[in-house]
């Protein structure tokens, strides 16, 4: 019985651990050189010695339960090919920052909150000296804390929603142990006199060849700008994050059913495809503790453990209540589309502007496929990972109805770019022994 776990973050590590304890042969495919994923960046995690940890390895395609892997330095043409056959697969591919476009967001010096966090926590590198952190969700707080630790002056933290929604969920916060964590961040921000403002956001970035200032404004609950509240703040970097987007290409490639943009799973972590399990942020955004609990559940189910992991299942139920509260408290407001100017880049790769999208919509594009072909949005190097969701939302807002194929942006049969020479040098059959 071989279980292949894809992803080395909290969910993947817990899944690998649970599966190997249940007696399965476990391969952990990890795109990073050190186990831990984005969350544990900078503090590598221990992996059970019975788990075969394939570091610096990326799954670039799936054919049923056969995985095509490339191992070696990122984007090197000299990576080694591997083909893995699995009896069960656990997808723990995580999520990346969602960023909503605003004028100037394509300037150097505008970073996702996750980028600032990865550089600070993982490498001790500060993205700037005078920084504003803006977006929505509790993740902004640890990002601000990490920036402070590497010596950055965080001028302000802007939360586009209000924290008042959380007052409806006091038991949820206490139950998942988040209150202590929040208190710690509040302490750090307080000691450094960093204001946290709610219903406010960076709505534009300014500069020629890099960001030198941002426009901050107060927001209504729908994220439209309150007139007369715009002010300019001089910065050398800005960090933005408006929630997270799940990394779905492998799940979509395997044919897993999605619900509300995430992989649908049952109580054991099983997806709609036999033998395929999912855990962590691909199934819903809920943080590292929930991801680890989901990983433990999915890993034992994938390995057909005789006993269900009761404690982990209980932690999953608790964590999911927190995840639901998170969705309710930190929506992305429709008024954000009003931040865009005609020449604001929406698709960064192909440099497609809001005006270009409007032209395509005026010409009758009413689904993702046509919109991509007519505007080129989502056809660049990132394959719509950054803009897809925003393009679909913006088009839906302009058209007055959702696009019929909004999930099409996640369809990437090549889950990660591959050089043509590598494609030619792909073994068709699995190795007997890695």
């Amino acid at each position, binding site marked *: 019985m071989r279980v292949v776990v894809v992803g080395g973050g909290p969910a993947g590590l817990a899944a690998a651990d649970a599966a190997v304890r249940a007696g399965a042969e476990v391969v952990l495919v990890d795109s990073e050189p050190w186990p831990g994923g984005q969350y544990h960046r900078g503090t590598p995690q221990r992996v059970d010695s019975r788990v075969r940890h394939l570091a610096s390895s990326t799954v670039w395609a799936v054919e049923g339960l056969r995985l095509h892997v490339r191992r070696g330095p990122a984007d090197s043409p000299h990576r080694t090919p591997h083909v893995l056959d699995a009896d069960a697969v656990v997808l723990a591919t995580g999520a990346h920052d969602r960023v909503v476009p605003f004028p100037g967001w394509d300037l150097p010096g*505008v970073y996702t909150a996750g980028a600032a966090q*990865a*550089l600070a926590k993982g490498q001790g590198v500060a993205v700037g000296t005078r920084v504003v952190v803006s977006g929505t969700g509790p993740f902004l707080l640890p990002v601000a804390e990490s920036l402070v630790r590497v010596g950055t002056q965080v001028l302000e933290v802007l939360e586009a929603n209000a924290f008042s929604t959380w007052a409806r969920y006091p038991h949820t916060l206490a139950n998942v142990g988040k209150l202590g964590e929040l208190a710690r961040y509040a302490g750090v921000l307080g000691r450094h006199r960093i204001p946290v403002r709610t219903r406010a956001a960076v709505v534009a970035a300014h500069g020629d060849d890099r960001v030198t200032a941002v426009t901050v404004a107060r927001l209504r609950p729908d994220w439209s700008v309150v007139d007369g509240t715009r002010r300019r703040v001089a910065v050398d970097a800005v960090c933005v994050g408006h929630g997270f987007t799940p990394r779905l290409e492998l799940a979509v490639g395997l044919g897993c059913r999605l619900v509300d943009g995430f992989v649908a799973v049952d109580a054991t972590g099983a997806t709609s495809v036999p033998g395929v399990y999912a855990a962590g942020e691909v199934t819903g955004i809920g943080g590292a503790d929930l991801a680890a609990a989901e990983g433990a559940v999915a890993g034992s189910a994938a390995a057909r453990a005789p006993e269900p992991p009761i404690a982990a299942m209980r932690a999953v139920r608790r964590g999911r209540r927190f995840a639901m509260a998170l969705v309710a408290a930190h929506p992305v407001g429709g008024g954000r589309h009003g931040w865009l100017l005609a020449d604001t880049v929406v698709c960064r790769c192909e440099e497609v502007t809001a005006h270009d999208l409007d032209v395509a919509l005026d010409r009758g594009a009413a689904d993702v496929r046509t919109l991509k072909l007519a505007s080129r949005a989502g056809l660049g*190097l*990132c394959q719509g990972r950054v803009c897809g969701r925003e393009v679909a939302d913006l088009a839906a807002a302009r058209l007055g109805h959702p696009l019929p194929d909004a999930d099409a942006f996640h369809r990437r049969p090549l889950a990660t770019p591959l050089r043509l020479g590598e494609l030619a040098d792909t073994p068709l059959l699995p190795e007997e022994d890695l």
Partner: protein
Amino acid sequence: MRITVDGEPHDVPPGRTIAGVLIAAGRSSWRTTRNGDRPRGVFCGIGVCFDCLVVVNGVPDVRACLRYPADGDVVRTQHGAELPT
């Protein structure tokens, strides 16, 4: 460990990516876009957005945020779409 970026030597502490080296050296951009010739550097920082591309030892389209350099690597700015040399 030491690499060169656009001819300039840079010391690389352990565990630092090419992007980390460049940002620590005060650079915020090292690529230009294919259509608008606009400067780009790190955006997502975790390999998703492909904004931070560099040419490493003649091979273009290498994500600087993911690539841990090897001693002696010759890195340079990528201008628009480039072919391998």
